[in-house]
């Protein structure tokens, strides 16, 4: 009889103690730091219509076919480099380039840091990359690489207008 009581008491004490330890551990579980809003595995095709953007230019061409052929020859390893777009989708582009052209190899950015990082990446592969001196206004159109730059708050990519890009 005494043995049975001892077993029951032992079980009750053991289960209670285990529950207490589990509860304490759960209470102390580290809170995962915020990683910013989930962005998903796909880069959003953001054109930044209406914003003032920095554009890195890899070349200008009179036709889309020429621009695409040139883009194919530019090595960026396994990364996406330039995008082929009509220059008319950026207000102020033609005036800064000075050459008659309808298509260009570009990558667009909202921050100086983003544009500069892309220039450095291009240089790693020996590719030409020039940041236009003045921001241009995006009129929408084709995707030109916007959103592939770090947000200044360090949480992930910059997915919306910044102070500098707002007109």
């Amino acid at each position: 009889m005494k043995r049975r009581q001892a077993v029951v008491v032992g079980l009750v004490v053991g289960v209670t103690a285990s529950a207490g330890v589990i509860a304490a551990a759960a209470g102390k579980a580290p809170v995962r730091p915020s990683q910013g809003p989930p962005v998903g595995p796909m880069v959003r095709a953001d054109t930044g219509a209406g914003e003032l953007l920095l554009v890195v230019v890899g070349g200008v061409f009179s036709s889309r076919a020429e621009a695409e052929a040139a883009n194919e020859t530019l090595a960026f390893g396994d990364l996406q480099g330039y995008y082929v777009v009509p220059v008319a989708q950026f207000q102020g582009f033609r005036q800064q380039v000075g050459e008659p052209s309808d298509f260009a190899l570009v990558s667009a950015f909202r921050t100086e840091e983003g544009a500069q990082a892309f220039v450095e990446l291009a240089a790693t592969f020996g590719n030409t990359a020039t940041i236009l001196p003045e921001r241009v206004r995006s009129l929408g159109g084709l995707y030109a690489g916007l959103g592939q730059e770090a947000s200044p708050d360090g949480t992930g990519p910059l997915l919306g207008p910044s102070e500098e890009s707002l007109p």
Partner: protein
Amino acid sequence: MRTGSHGRGGLRFVSIAIPIAVVLPLIVAFHWTRLGWRDGHVNYPSRPSGYTQIVNRFGQPCNAEARAISMRWTAADTGVTYSFRFHRKLGGRPTAMVSDKGGRSTNLDNDVYGHIQNAHLQPYIKHGIYGYACRAKRNSNEWSTHAFGIAVDVSSAEEYLGKCTSTINRNHASIWQGHGWYWGLAFCDPMHFQYAINY
């Protein structure tokens, strides 16, 4: 007489030069461990599988941790030294060979790099070396593993995307693989090593 003297001088030169030529490379070749390098194998993160696990372990693409640590690596063929960045969880921890960069593990800059030096495989690290880049995969709108700071490309000019065999990186791929890195040769990207699978 003069000829004889020259002959003895030549013999003496040869008798000194040959041992030096044999011994010197051995001394120099093992300098990496002689200087104190050890495979630390400290605090490696577990290797994620798929996008969700990558984000859970390393954060969103282009986050500040993804580019927190930097290292330099010289291409053997051109002599160009590349500086590139990678995730804080994959290196930057102080060792005999690496200064304290605020990193959490010894993986890339001490262990992988050190093994390659120690095994005399540096001649197979050729030009075109990079790590973190906030970019999509080529001809895709998917984030590249480079955007998380968990991918490094080496010898990228010779081991280009679309080449389904390896001529250069195969010499040191096993070192990367032995430290948790997945080799992109499986998807015809032999320049590419990433600390993730199924993505």
